[in-house]
Each structure stands twice: as C-alpha cells, then as structure tokens.
C-alpha cells in the first residue's frame, strides 16, 4: 500500500506539488494522468527516494520511508527513457539487482532466464541496448525492474515510444505482469485509452494537486 501524506515539493518560489495526500491499496493498478510539467515525474521520484519532499511523508505498507535511501524502499522504477545501462548486455541488465544482492550464480541465471522467457526476450539475452528495438527495450527495462522482486512498480510513460500495435501488446503484458507478481503499480500516462485499459484506480494531477477520478 502506498500512502502519500501531505507531500509538498517546491523549487524556488514555485510549488510543484501542493499538499498531496493519497492512499493506493496493495495489488492495485493505478494510473496517473496530467498535463506535461504538472509534477507527475517529480511525484514518482519522491516515491522512489530520488528526490526529498519539501514537507510530508511517504509510507509504504504503513512504514514511513521518507528518509530511506532508494535502495532500501523495495520499489521498481521504469523511467520514460527506460534508462538501460549502456554497455551491459540484456542478461547483465536483468541480472543487475540480483547480482548486487549476492544471489548465487546458478540462481541468478535461473531468475534471468525465467524473466526473459516471461517477457519473450530470451533470444536477446546477449544483445547490447543499442541493438534492441523500442518494444524490446521496454521489455528489458520491465524485466530488470522485476528481477529486484519489488512490491511496488512505478512506470513513467513506459509505452510512449511504442507504435499502436506494440502498445496494445504491451498493455496486455503489463496487466499480466501486475497480476502474476501481485504488484502495486503506479503508471504515469498521457493516453486515455491506456489508462482505461489498465487502471483500477484513476488519478489526475492538476495545479500541483492530486485527485481521484471516478469512472464514468
């Protein structure tokens, strides 16, 4: 469960997030919409711990994580540009987090292969990011985030670079991933159709405030 408790974030005199308070239940697929520059990415970064709020608290499963480092929060993050690690092969990208945590090589290989199978990228394991298409990169970024076995997944417009046909396929994949891994997902998007297809909970950000939208 994600709880944002009176989160405010200011830069200079400009208020980007104004007293944002919201609770997203566990195993929920929440979609967040809003105009460009309204503070959606800032909100995700505060959740991840990449940015400290000016005031307010972030609670994950009722634990205050506001002062914890990103690595201590158990959050998977897929940014808009996917941010694959340059120079690392797909196998190393997916195995990055387990290797860091000292998972034995055999178990690491199994985990990488299982995720690669699940995301349909097994034939790409020895490729570098430069040799992947947009859709393949997106799958690798998702697999890399899930290899860390997070409870919460934050997606910042992950499908924006995909064409229409690939986007439909990716939506199905995200639905499957969320249910199979019992994840709480917060997905930022500009696409109403994407939000309608994926979201259990619809959020809208405007003027630095976050509101829950009720489905018509």
């Amino acid at each position, binding site marked *: 469960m994600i709880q944002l408790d009176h989160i405010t974030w200011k830069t200079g005199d400009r208020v980007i997030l104004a007293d944002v308070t919201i609770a997203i239940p566990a195993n929920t697929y929440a979609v967040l919409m809003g105009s460009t520059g309204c503070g959606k990415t800032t909100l995700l970064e505060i959740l*991840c*711990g*990449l940015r400290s709020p000016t005031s307010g608290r972030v609670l994950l499963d009722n634990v205050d994580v506001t002062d914890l480092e990103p*690595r201590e929060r158990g*959050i998977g*993050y897929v940014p808009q540009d996917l941010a694959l690690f*340059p120079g*690392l092969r797909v196998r190393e990208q997916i195995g990055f987090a387990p290797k860091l*945590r000292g998972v034995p090589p055999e178990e690491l290989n199994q985990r990488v292969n299982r995720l690669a199978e699940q995301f349909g990228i097994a034939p790409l394991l020895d490729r570098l990011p430069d040799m992947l298409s947009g859709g393949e990169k997106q799958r690798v970024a998702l697999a890399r985030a899930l290899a860390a076995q997070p409870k919460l997944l934050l997606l910042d417009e992950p499908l924006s670079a995909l064409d229409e046909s690939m986007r439909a396929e990716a939506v199905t994949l995200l639905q499957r991933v969320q249910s199979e891994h019992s994840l709480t997902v917060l997905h930022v998007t500009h696409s109403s159709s994407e939000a309608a297809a994926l979201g259990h909970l619809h959020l809208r950000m405007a003027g630095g405030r976050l509101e829950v939208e009720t489905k018509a």
Partner: protein
Amino acid sequence: MTLNRSNLCWLALAVITAGYLLFWAFLLGATATYSTPDSWLKVLMSPEIRHATWLSLVTCTLAAGFAVLLAVPVGYLMSRLEFRGKSWLDAALDIPIILPPLVVGLCLLIFFQTWGGKLIENGFDVDLSPIEVPESWRPDPPLIRDEENEFTHEYKKPSQMGDHWKHLLHVPGFPFTYQISGVILAQFVVAAAFAIRTMRGTFQHLSARPEDVALTLGCTRFQALWHVALPAARRGMVAAFCIAWARSLGEFGPILVFAGATRMKTEVLPTTVWLELSVGNLEAAVAVSLFMVALAVLVLVAVRATGEKV
C-alpha cells in the same frame, strides 16, 4: 554534382579547413627540410636524447594516468551535484589552464620551500613515546670496568634511566624538487585540469537516469558510479587520458622551473629542444621537435584506436 547554395557552403567550410591544415603542413614541412634524415638519426640515437625520450614517455604516461584518476571523481561531482559556490569551484579548477606555465612551476617551487612542502620532501619524526616498558624488558646497562678493573654493569637508578623509552619513528619524505618525480608532478598539475574538464563534459553528456535506476535496484551512490557511470564514460576516460598525455608531452615551463634541465636526469624532450637551441644546435632541436610531433601523433592515434574499441 551541381553547385547549389548548400554545396557552396560545404565547399567554403572545406576550403577553410584545408587552409588551416595546409598552414600546419607548411610549418612542419619547412622544419623538416631544415635538416637531413641522416642527421636526425644521428641526433636521435645519442644517449642523451634516448634518455629524454624514455623519460618523456614514462612521465607523460604516469602524469596522464594520475590525471585521469583525479579527473573521474572531480568530473563526476561537478556534473552531478548542485551546490552553493559551484561556479567558483568550477573557475578554480580551470586555474592551471589560464596560468602562464612558468608561474605554475614557480608556484610548485615556492610551495616546496614552505613548511608543508619541506615536510613532504624531508619526511618527519613521530614521537611514539611515552610507551611503558616493564623493568625486565630493559637491556642491561653498558659494561664498565670497576675500581678492581673487573667488568661490571654500570649502576643507574631507574630515575636516571628514565621511566619511559623514547621512540622516534621516521616517516620518510618524497623529494620532488629537481627530481624525476618533480617532472611528473609538474606535468600532472597542468594535465589534470584538462582531464577534469574532459571528464566533466563526458558525465554532463551522459544521462543521470541510469544511475537513478541503479539506486532503486539496490546500488549505493558509489556502486552506481562504479557499475553504471564509469562503464558508460570509458570513451571519455580514454579521451581525457589522450588530452592529458599530449598536454604532458608538450609541457616545458613548469618542468624547467621546478624540475630543472639536468642532462640524463630530469631532461625531457621539450627541455632537450630548449637546451639544444640555447647552445645553437638548431639541427638537433629540429630533429627532436619532429620526433615529438611523430611520437605524439603515433601515441594519440594508437590510444584513440583503442578507445574506439572500448
């Protein structure tokens, strides 16, 4: 190809580039024709020049290596962290670039005449006393002859012997002034500023987003730098090394002032050119100058070719 406006533009730019390269070709050509290959070979095979060549290669490589080791953390800090006074620090890091080379040498020379510099060069003693030593551990007093001419241990009261052992640990110094290490330091001081500038530019061009993702995947900031930023910046590191190496090879002023121009000791190739010129041996100066040009081109092409593969 028809000569349209776009082509004319490219043609004009090509003429400017070719003109600049031609100017350099004339400069080098004129220098090369001043002497004959036979006399070049004779000069270059002399023991003094061979020593200077060897010393130049070793000191440039070490100075460039140290410069990159410094430039990576400093460049990363300057590109990733926003803090108060950053623009002042930025300007301070560029000081060796704008300072006249002789002034850099003078600064080094004066620094090593100060208390701190002398401490580095001469070393210092650390007083490890007082350390309590049990009576039984102490050696016997020295043997002396008593009134009956028999050997006996000199009697001393414990207070006379002292209740403590005085221990002085000498930390050896590391001399720089007029030494080979001074050549490396003089080259490093200037080369590091160029390497820092290159590494800062490299990190600024790399997105910080992969490092952010690495932090969420379990990395500390240091691990994100080591596992993500450094592999991505490896070409920049090669470029920084090249620039630092080339800069070190051409360094003259600080070396002359700080490390001197002692033949077969601290003489590097630019010093050789100056020494030969000062005694009117223009042929030798020309030979060494051309050799430096060839050496620089050769090493930079080799390092860049390696850089393309990493």
